[in-house]
């Protein structure tokens, strides 16, 4: 689907919205009928954000227009790496954003 595929987008909005609500309301409604999720499941679910975000970020950084590209041709890879370092030390999303965008703009300007 493309961003302007309005029909497909309504479908996504409806299903993602409904699904998310069902997840949120699940135990509110099932209270007492279904036991609490096991501690093991809770711990396993904690791993999901790291896995999903990494699965989205890494390909985005190493592929340029569909082809595998490392620096010096790939400015986003460099900007992403610098931002990652900033994120490691500052643990601040705003700083990570500023550093990453700043690096990208600098590299694109110099190119």
């Amino acid at each position, binding site marked *: 689907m493309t961003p302007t595929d*309005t029909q497909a987008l309504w479908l996504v909005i409806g299903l993602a919205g409904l699904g998310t609500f069902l997840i949120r309301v699940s135990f509110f409604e099932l209270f007492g009928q279904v036991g609490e999720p096991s501690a093991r499941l809770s711990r396993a679910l904690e*791993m999901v954000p790291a896995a999903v975000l990494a699965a989205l970020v890494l390909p985005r950084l190493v592929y340029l227009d569909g082809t595998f590209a490392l620096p010096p041709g790939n400015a986003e890879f460099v900007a992403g790496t610098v931002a990652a370092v900033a994120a*490691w030390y500052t643990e601040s999303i705003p700083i990570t954003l500023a550093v990453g965008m700043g690096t990208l703009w600098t590299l694109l300007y110099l190119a």
Partner: protein
Amino acid sequence: MTPSGHETPFRDGLAVSPPLILASVPIGFLYGVAAAGIGVDPLQAVAMSVAMFTGAAQLVVVELVASDALPAIVVLAALVVNLRYLMYSASLAVYFRDVARRWRWLSAYLLLDVNYAITLDRFADVADPDVRRFYLGVSVPLWLTQQAAVVVGIVVGASVPGAWRLDFAVPLVFIGILVPAMKSRANVAAGLTAGTLAVALVVLPLNLGIVVSALVGTVVGALVQESEAT
């Protein structure tokens, strides 16, 4: 004075919301900018934010729609990212047990990481009737400011030239969330596995590579976690 010492629980909720709002408004703003940036109809962008009301998942949706993913994959990814709300639902359910359904559902709809955490933090006594009002006091401003931020973001995103590459802000936010989490071995295992696998599986159609990598990464991370616990 009630068990937890709140005289005006709803207003107490309002009073603690500002720092939480400050933390979540940027994501809503960025979502608006990114959605407008890739050409999503403003009405649909707002509708999505109202329907989902989850910052990270909305960014994931935008990122996937921008890369031409199938609707089924987009929905699946959003729900996978939101699975952690199962835990929040389980923990908070007991507080809302005796509440009328419409308030139960409204409260469930408004559930986020931040109001979950602060409610659990403030209320040890699950029978305390103040919980519901406090929770709403925290959550209603969060919802209002979030939607406002999205609208502002859409307006800004539509007027900023594409050359500014604001689309890169979404992966940067992901990095900002992901990297600090890499300070735990299990998360490193999950992230490295998912990331490298996703790079390798880019050839798979329908963005299946992302879903498969995320699942495998989660399992690997969970296994590392279990091995550390024993």
